[in-house]
C-alpha cells in the first residue's frame, strides 16, 4: 500500500502565477518602467530564491544587479545567487547587505580580494567554484534559477529579445529558468518597434525594462601587439614549429593573453614561410580577438566560433560571414555554451597560467583572492567521451600510450605556455601551488587547480618544449618539467643527466633542436605591431575602443 501520494504536481507553476499576479500593477504587458523596477523585484522575488544574474565574461545585467542591491532586506534576503562572473562591486553589495547569502560562480577576477574578505566574514557562503560549462549544466540539474536577470541590446513591445553580438551565456540562463516555471527579467539598452533578430522569443520572457545606461561590457580579449615581447615571439615560433606543424593541429582553442596573441600574429609571417597555410589553425574556437585579423585576412583561418564578441570588432565580424557565425540580420551570434562544448572535441588547447608544479598541475589562484577559473579547465582537459579521430588526436594518443592496454585511443593536446618568471621575478614554476594555501584558508575540499597534470601534454617556455606524453614514468615527467623551468628553483633542481637524456630522446626540445635561429625571435616577425596595424589589416572595419587608440 502506498502511504502517501502527491496530488499536486504543479507547485512551481502555481507559485509563478502568484508572483506574476502580485506584480500585475507594476507592468504594462511585459514592460516595466525603471521607476517601478525595484518595487517589481521586491514583489516577484521571494526570500531564499535562487536568482541567476547574467554576469558573463563581458556582458553584464548590471542595472538589474544594481537595483537588486537596493531592495528592502526585510522583504528580500538569503538569496542564493548563481552567476558565472562576479565582476562589479554591486555584485558583492547584495551579499554585504544580507540580501543574498549563498553563491555558486565561476570567476571573480577583480573582485577576488573583496570576495575573500566577505567569505572570511561569513557574509558569503560559497557553494562551489565552477568552470562555465559545469555551472550552466547545473542550471539544468540542481541549481535551476527561480528568477533570472539577463542583459540584451533591444526588445520589442511584446518582449522579443535581441541580445546583440554578445549573446554569451543568455541561452542557458533563460532556458533553464523559463522552462521550470521561473521568472525571466530582461534589461535592454532600448525598446524598439522591431528587433533586428529574435534571440529569445517573447513567450520565454516575463518582464522587460529599459536601462538608463547601456549594459556594462568589457573588451577583455583585446591585446595590443605593441606589448608583445621578443620572448613571446620566440615561444610562439616554438609552438608553431614544434607543436602545430608537428601534429598538424587544425582545430583548436586559444586562451587569452599575449602569448597566444603572438602565435596569431606569426601565422601570416613565420607559419606561412614554413608552408603551413592550409595545414594548421583552420578552425578556431575563440572570441573575435583583433590579433586574429591578419591571419583571417591572409586566408589562414576558415572558421571561428566565439563564446562572446569583442568591442570594436562588430563591423569586421559582420563583414566576414564565411568565417564567423553571423545571424540573418548580419551581426554575430555568440554562445559560450556551444563554444565550450566544441572545445571539448577540438584537438588542442593552449593558454597561459600563473603557476605550474613539478607534477604539471597548474593554477591561476593567488593568495588572499578567490579568483576562480572561467573556461580554461573545460578547454584544457582531455575529453574522455570523444570518439571521432583526427591526425593530431591520434598522434597524441599514440605518444601517450604507455602500453597498459591493447586498445588504441587518441587524446587532446593540452598546452600551457609560460615564461619561467613573471613580472617582479615571480617564478611560474613552484614546488607547491598557492592553491593549496587557498584551500586551507577558505576551507575548500580541493585546491583550485586549473589544468590537472594528467591532462597536460606540453609545456612551452622560453627554454623549450617539454612533451609530457613521451615520458615513460612520473619521475621522467618531473624531470621534463624541471628541464624547461629555466632558472627558477624548480628548474635549478633538475638532474642535468636526466634532462640531457630527455633532450636526446626529443622529449625536451630547445629552440635550436627545432632549427629556430633565436636572432629571428624579434617583434619584426609579427604581422601587426600595433593596434593601428590591425585597423589597417581590417581595411578600417575594426574600430578599437578609445583606450586602445593612441594616434
Amino acid at each position, binding site marked *: 500500500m502506498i502511504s502517501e501520494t502527491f496530488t499536486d504536481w504543479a507547485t512551481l507553476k502555481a507559485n509563478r502565477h502568484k508572483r506574476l499576479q502580485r506584480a500585475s500593477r507594476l507592468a504594462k504587458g511585459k514592460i516595466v518602467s525603471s521607476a517601478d523596477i525595484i518595487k517589481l523585484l521586491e514583489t516577484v522575488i521571494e526570500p531564499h530564491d535562487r536568482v541567476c544574474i547574467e554576469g558573463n565574461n563581458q556582458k553584464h545585467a548590471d542595472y538589474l544587479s544594481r537595483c537588486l542591491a537596493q531592495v528592502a532586506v526585510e522583504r528580500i534576503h538569503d538569496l542564493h545567487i548563481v552567476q558565472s562572473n562576479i565582476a562589479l562591486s554591486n555584485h558583492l553589495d547584495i551579499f554585504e547587505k544580507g540580501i543574498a547569502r549563498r553563491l555558486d560562480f565561476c570567476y571573480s577576477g577583480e573582485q577576488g580580494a573583496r570576495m575573500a574578505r566577505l567569505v572570511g566574514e561569513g557574509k558569503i557562503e560559497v557553494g562551489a567554484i565552477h568552470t562555465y560549462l559545469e555551472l550552466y549544466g547545473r542550471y539544468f540539474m540542481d541549481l535551476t534559477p527561480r528568477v533570472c536577470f539577463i542583459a540584451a541590446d533591444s526588445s520589442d513591445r511584446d518582449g522579443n529579445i535581441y541580445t546583440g553580438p554578445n549573446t554569451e551565456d543568455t541561452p542557458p540562463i533563460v532556458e533553464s529558468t523559463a522552462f521550470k516555471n521561473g521568472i525571466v527579467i530582461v534589461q535592454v539598452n532600448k525598446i524598439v518597434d522591431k528587433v533586428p533578430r529574435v534571440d529569445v522569443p517573447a513567450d520565454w520572457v516575463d518582464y522587460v525594462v529599459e536601462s538608463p545606461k547601456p549594459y556594462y561590457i568589457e573588451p577583455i580579449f583585446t591585446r595590443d601587439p605593441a606589448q608583445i615581447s621578443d620572448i613571446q615571439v620566440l615561444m610562439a615560433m616554438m609552438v608553431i614549429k614544434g607543436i602545430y606543424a608537428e601534429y598538424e593541429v587544425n582545430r583548436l582553442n586559444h586562451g587569452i593573453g599575449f602569448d597566444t596573441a603572438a602565435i596569431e600574429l606569426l601565422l601570416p609571417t613565420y607559419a606561412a614561410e614554413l608552408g603551413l597555410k592550409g595545414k594548421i589553425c583552420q578552425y578556431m574556437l575563440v572570441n573575435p580577438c583583433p590579433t586574429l585579423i591578419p591571419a583571417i585576412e591572409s586566408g589562414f583561418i576558415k572558421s571561428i566560433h566565439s563564446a562572446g564578441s569583442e568591442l570594436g570588432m562588430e563591423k569586421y565580424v559582420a563583414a566576414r560571414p564565411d568565417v564567423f557565425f553571423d545571424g540573418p540580420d548580419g551581426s554575430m551570434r555568440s554562445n559560450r555554451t556551444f563554444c565550450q562544448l566544441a572545445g571539448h572535441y577540438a584537438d588542442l588547447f593552449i593558454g597561459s597560467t600563473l603557476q605550474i608544479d613539478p607534477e604539471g598541475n597548474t593554477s591561476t589562484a593567488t593568495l588572499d583572492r578567490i579568483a576562480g577559473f572561467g573556461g580554461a579547465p573545460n578547454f584544457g582537459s582531455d575529453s574522455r567521451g570523444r570518439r571521432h579521430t583526427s591526425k593530431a588526436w591520434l598522434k597524441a594518443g599514440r605518444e601517450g600510450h604507455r602500453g597498459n592496454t591493447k586498445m588504441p585511443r587518441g587524446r587532446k593536446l593540452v598546452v600551457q605556455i609560460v615564461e619561467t618568471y613573471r613580472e617582479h*621575478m615571480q617564478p611560474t614554476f613552484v614546488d607547491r601551488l598557492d592553491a593549496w594555501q587557498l584551500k586551507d584558508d577558505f576551507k575548500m575540499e580541493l585546491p583550485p587547480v586549473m589544468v590537472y597534470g594528467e591532462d597536460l601534454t606540453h609545456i612551452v617556455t622560453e627554454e623549450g618544449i617539454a612533451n609530457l606524453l613521451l615520458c615513460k614514468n612520473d619521475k621522467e615527467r618531473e624531470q621534463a618539467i624541471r628541464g624547461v623551468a*629555466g632558472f627558477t628553483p624548480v628548474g635549478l633542481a633538475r638532474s642535468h643527466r636526466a634532462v640531457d637524456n630527455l633532450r636526446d630522446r626529443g622529449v625536451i626540445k630547445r629552440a635550436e633542436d627545432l632549427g629556430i635561429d633565436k636572432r629571428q625571435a624579434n617583434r619584426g616577425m609579427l604581422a601587426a605591431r600595433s593596434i593601428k596595424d590591425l585597423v589597417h589589416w581590417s581595411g578600417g572595419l575594426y574600430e578599437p575602443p578609445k583606450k586602445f587608440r593612441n594616434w
Partner: protein
Amino acid sequence: MMELLKFEFPGHRAPLRPMRGSAFAGVVNSGSLEVLIESVDLGGRCQVEVKTSANGFRSTWDAVLEDFFARNRFADIKVSINDFGATPAVVSLRLDQAAAEIMEMGAK
C-alpha cells in the same frame, strides 16, 4: 643604485676558433638589457661584467651565465651587460642572439 657584478669562467677546452670582433644584442628599456660580446685575449678564460638595476640576484646571474658558457664553446670572450631588470628569459635570449652573431662572424 646600479650594482656591479663580475664573473669569470674557465674557457671551453676545445673552443670554436677563430673568434673575431664583437657582437651586440638588446635594447635599453625597463625590463630589458643590452649585451656586448667581444673577442679579447684573456689567456683562454671568459669574463663577464654585469651592471644591473635589480640588486640581490647574484646567484641567478651565476646560474644563467654558467649555463650560457656550458652551451657555447667559448674561450677568450668578454661579455658586458647593462641590465634594466630583465628576467632570466630575456637575459638568455640576448646572450644567445649575440653569441649566434659573433659565431657567424668567426666563421666568415
